[in-house]
């Protein structure tokens, strides 16, 4: 089975192979002997070709947060089966965008109404958190299908605020 890892704009495909009690990972023309042992309290000792890396791996839905030597990388990770399932699910939503609260905060402005046409990059909601105002923008052109928040509302991180349907074809 293939494993797909994505960090920012870097995408890699990993394969794993076990033989003789040794785990070998490969990615393109590179490969490594790998050992990953859980230490406890979220820490893992990763050994790659004899080099130690004291990692914290925090597995969450669809991605892992890896911390190692001061770095913190949020890495999207899925295997072949999950990728197929995600593609299917994505096809079902038919390109609908959901604008979510990037962090817990207070909605200080709602810039759109249901039925309004929006362009990619256009601010739809302004969220205030940590004393700063953060504009949330549409990722693609579309038509606002529902507004799930209003000015003054305190929202949790990840809360859906606005739904935008794709623009009519043509």
């Amino acid at each position, binding site marked *: 089975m293939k494993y797909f890892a994505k960090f920012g704009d870097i995408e890699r495909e990993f394969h794993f192979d076990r033989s003789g009690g040794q785990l070998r990972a490969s990615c393109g023309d590179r490969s490594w002997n*790998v050992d990953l042992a859980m230490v406890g309290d*979220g820490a893992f000792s990763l050994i790659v070709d004899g080099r130690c890396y004291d990692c914290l791996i925090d597995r969450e839905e669809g991605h*892992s947060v890896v911390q190692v030597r001061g770095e913190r*990388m949020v*890495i999207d990770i899925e295997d072949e089966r999950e990728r197929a399932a995600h593609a299917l699910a994505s096809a079902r939503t038919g390109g609908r965008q959901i604008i979510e609260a990037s*962090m817990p905060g207070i909605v200080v402005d709602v810039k759109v109404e249901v039925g309004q046409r929006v362009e990619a990059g256009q601010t739809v909601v302004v969220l205030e958190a940590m004393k700063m105002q953060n504009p949330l923008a549409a990722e693609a052109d579309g038509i606002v299908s529902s507004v799930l928040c209003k000015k003054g509302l305190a929202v949790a991180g990840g809360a859906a605020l606005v739904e935008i349907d794709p623009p009519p074809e043509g």
Partner: protein
Amino acid sequence: MSKPPFKRVLIANRGEIAMRVMRTAREMGIETVAVYSDADRNALHARRADIAVHIGPSAPSESYLRGDKILAAAKQVGADCIHPGYGFLSENAAFSDACEKAGVVFVGPSAHAIRLMGDKVEARRAADAAEVPLVPGLKDDVRDDAVLIEKAAEIGYPVMLKAAAGGGGKGIRIVHEEKKLLQAAELARNEARAAFGDDRVYLEKFVTRPRHVEVQIVADQHGNVTAFGERECSVQRRHQKLVEESPCSVVTPELRERMCDAAQRLARAVGYVGAGTIEFLHSEGEFYFLEMNTRLQVEHPITEMRFGVDLVREMFRVAAGETVMECPEPRGHAIEIRINAEDPETYFPSLGSIRRLNMPGGPGVRLDSCLYRGMEVTPYYDSMLAKLVVHAEDRPRAIERAIRALQEMRLVGVATSIPVALRALQSELFRSGDYDTSILEKIDRRPPAEMIDVGMLAAAVGHYLHTEEVAAPSATDGLGPRMPMWKVVDRVERLGRRPL
């Protein structure tokens, strides 16, 4: 222990600075009183104090900014002094006044000094009178558009518009060409009004290759002002400092003496008492007065480590009428890194619960923090969670030590400024010492290639072992014993995520 200068201090703050003040107070034998809002019921400062008083809802405007409630709490518990920390009421002249009227010592300057230095226009005037060099610019707010345009042309673009009541980098706009001046002034006024309730802005030259260099002073009630050298604070994002160091690589002994003299002159001219910081803009070998912060500064620990002093102790001492110490010989080099809960890409705040915590240690490492496992990072307050401060024999060693300590520190639950600080410290630009406030825009902020390789591999092998276990929980191939560990980890993680 010698007799404490006060019996009981109320610390009108929260977070790491409340802990910082509490530590020195405890060491001096002064009883500590914490105040806390709803959101801070479990905060370390509220738990570790001798007495804790609840002062209201989570919003600062209903708790930590409510001078009346805080003063009432001080009276209620019999505190004989109030330490304001930084932020909140620390530069609020009315509060300093109210404390005096209530017979509670405000551990900070007089209302007069706060008022004078808090008004940027007045402060520039005072600095000018004390012969402290100023950035070319206007000493007054100008409301006449034509005059503004004319003066900006005289000073020469780029120019800067700053809120008179501003501070901490807020309410600053840079204008590169005349046609954007009026619109920028309008926006600056609006922002200033919204943020500070005062829409005055002033105009000044935007200097080239600016470095932010500041001088720490402590002044007593007897006219003595001690200057504890300078701090370099040019590593900033969003006009907020991220990495500070002392000494500054480009300040010569001669320049240092001039800067310290200027700082002492200004403090004396305004009858200053307490700890204060005179911020200068350093540009191409010259320095200009920026502003004076009439309080303890976030980055004071680098001065403490280099000079071997306790500035909070000095604050208590001079507030009680004692004489300020003389400046000892400095030693080595110190660097501070602010650990903020923020996205290292966007610098947006990162909220969440601190589920795991690994603290750095070893030689030359100091950590000032309010962190504890289970702590909630809420949207109500500043995103700074901790300050990592290192000290070593010289600058190159201090840089390596800072990197080493940052690599030891780990927080699970929020993103932090650690990776950005690492990038700065590892950059050739920082190592050269020849950097300015644009440094963070100039460096590559991505992790090193080796760490990207390791991170992606770790995520992939973790996922592989996990899915393998799910698919064949009873598989045994010699690596079997490792697999059930994933179960344990998942269980611990799930539990850890519950609100405790």
